[in-house]
């Protein structure tokens, strides 16, 4: 297998981009990434997108975006795995280059939430759950996470504000990310007083849906431009795993099997152990997901993921730095782009360009993209190495 390098990265600000359409958003990130790579010419485009056929009435994004990126003629397809679409697209790009079949792969994640307004967005999101046996009950993704959180709090006697640490960490870190939707730290009272969305889940347990696009250019080391200016970051491990779509079909819904399996495989491939991970970009679409991911990956024992956050152990340069650029909570949750944002942010950290958010001596990143309540989990290990 060839060594796969993150040659270029690009991202747009996450937010409500009323004036920018799906294609313009994606193209902005693509242009950034291609420029950052020193002008590499992609041979294949993998688009991570969750809901464009529903939210924007636009399917077939591969051809559309290749065309608008001036890449007509290349291979171009959409990869969909709900919230894990971005991570899944990254893995397809990785496989293409690693296999030697593609020299330069372009991965773009894009989501345009604001093309639809109102209750239709929740209905669209609910299509990523089990439509016949969950969504038909009027279920929303937030309610699904609330069911999980309620049970978790019941089983492990978590106090009322036990999950506050996730939002506090995310917002503290997002303050330094120029692409984040929210760039302001919050006080503990903000969490405590936040409006309840679906008991026990409040506004600050939920990452805000927002528009955004992020892109990476992948290639083999020998194809990098001669004057490539960045420190080298390679994909050292990549794995994906799937579980039941419906929460009610799980043997143990309080354990994210896929998060454990995919992270374990990716680390094994990279030849590292958990202690070597410099920071962990988890998929905190809901704070309960973050807690369960910390437990599944092995940073906390079962039932104690929330405590890690409460104790401040996931803040920058503590036990395990998480959501270093704000995570989904503060950077925003741009659906199928989220997993690619994680890749971009991890590359920035490993290049040592994260400024105030910099994880000291960052060498190895674990990034994990989840679809639904870890019905899909895609994990990647990024590693900085010296040429």
């Amino acid at each position: 297998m060839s060594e796969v390098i993150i040659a270029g990265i690009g991202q747009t600000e996450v937010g409500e981009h009323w004036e920018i359409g799906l294609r313009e958003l994606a193209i902005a990130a693509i242009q950034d990434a291609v420029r950052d790579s020193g002008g590499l010419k992609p041979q294949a485009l993998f688009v991570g997108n969750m809901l464009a056929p529903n939210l924007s009435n636009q399917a077939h994004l591969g051809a559309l975006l290749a065309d608008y990126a001036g890449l007509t003629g290349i291979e171009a397809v959409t990869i969909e795995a709900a919230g894990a679409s971005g991570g899944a697209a990254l893995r397809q790009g990785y496989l293409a280059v690693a296999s030697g079949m593609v020299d330069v792969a372009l991965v773009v994640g894009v989501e345009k939430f604001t093309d639809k307004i109102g209750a239709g967005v929740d209905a669209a999101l609910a299509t990523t759950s089990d439509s016949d046996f969950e969504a038909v009950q009027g279920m929303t993704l937030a309610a699904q996470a609330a069911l999980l959180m309620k049970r978790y709090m019941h089983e492990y006697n978590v106090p009322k504000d036990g999950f506050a640490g996730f939002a506090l960490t995310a917002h503290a870190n997002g303050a330094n990310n120029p692409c984040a939707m929210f760039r302001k730290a919050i006080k503990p009272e903000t969490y405590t007083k936040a409006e309840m969305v679906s008991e026990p889940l409040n506004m600050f347990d939920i990452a805000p849906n927002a528009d955004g696009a992020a892109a990476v250019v992948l290639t083999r080391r020998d194809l990098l431009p001669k004057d490539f200016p960045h420190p080298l970051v390679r994909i050292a491990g990549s794995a994906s795993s799937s579980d039941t779509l419906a929460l009610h079909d799980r043997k143990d819904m309080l354990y994210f099997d896929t998060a454990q399996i995919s992270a374990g495989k990716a680390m094994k491939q990279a030849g590292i152990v958990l202690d070597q991970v410099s920071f962990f970009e988890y998929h905190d679409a809901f704070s309960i997901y973050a807690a369960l991911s910390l437990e599944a990956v092995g940073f906390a024992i079962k039932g104690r993921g929330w405590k890690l956050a409460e104790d401040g152990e996931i803040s920058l340069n503590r036990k395990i730095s998480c959501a270093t650029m704000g995570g989904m909570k503060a950077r925003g949750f741009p659906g199928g782009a989220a997993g690619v944002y994680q890749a971009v942010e991890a590359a920035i950290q490993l290049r040592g360009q994260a400024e105030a958010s910099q994880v000291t001596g960052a060498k190895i990143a674990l990034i994990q993209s989840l679809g639904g309540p870890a019905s899909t989990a895609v994990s990647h290990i990024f590693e900085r190495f010296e040429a």
Partner: protein
Amino acid sequence: MEIPRHWRLKQQRYSLVGEVCPHCDHKIFPPRDICPNCGDEAKELFTFSGKGEVYSYTKIYEAPTGFDANAPYTVALVKLEEGPIITAQLTDLDSTPVEIGMPVEMVTRKMRNDGDERGIIVYGYKFRLRT
């Protein structure tokens, strides 16, 4: 309109018809033809009693399209007496606070309109507190 989908699922929706594994007697809902317990084929129909208890619950204030007329409403994970957990709304709640472990029973209720009020009415299972 999604008539065929709702029509196809009517037995599950109206009366909790699932499956029982002929090999290990595992009860299955929703039906999936393959036993999640032993992995063998399981196509024998089994009608659940509709009795269970609340495994988890939450309330939805901002409902997705099609459910807005009923908001706010409570959804729950219900652990059926026969084993499986299912997702369902709780209905006929009064001022009694819902708690994990409360006994509930299945009732057949209106779920939503298929499309608007010109479309068919989708009926299905919900649960209410058992007295």
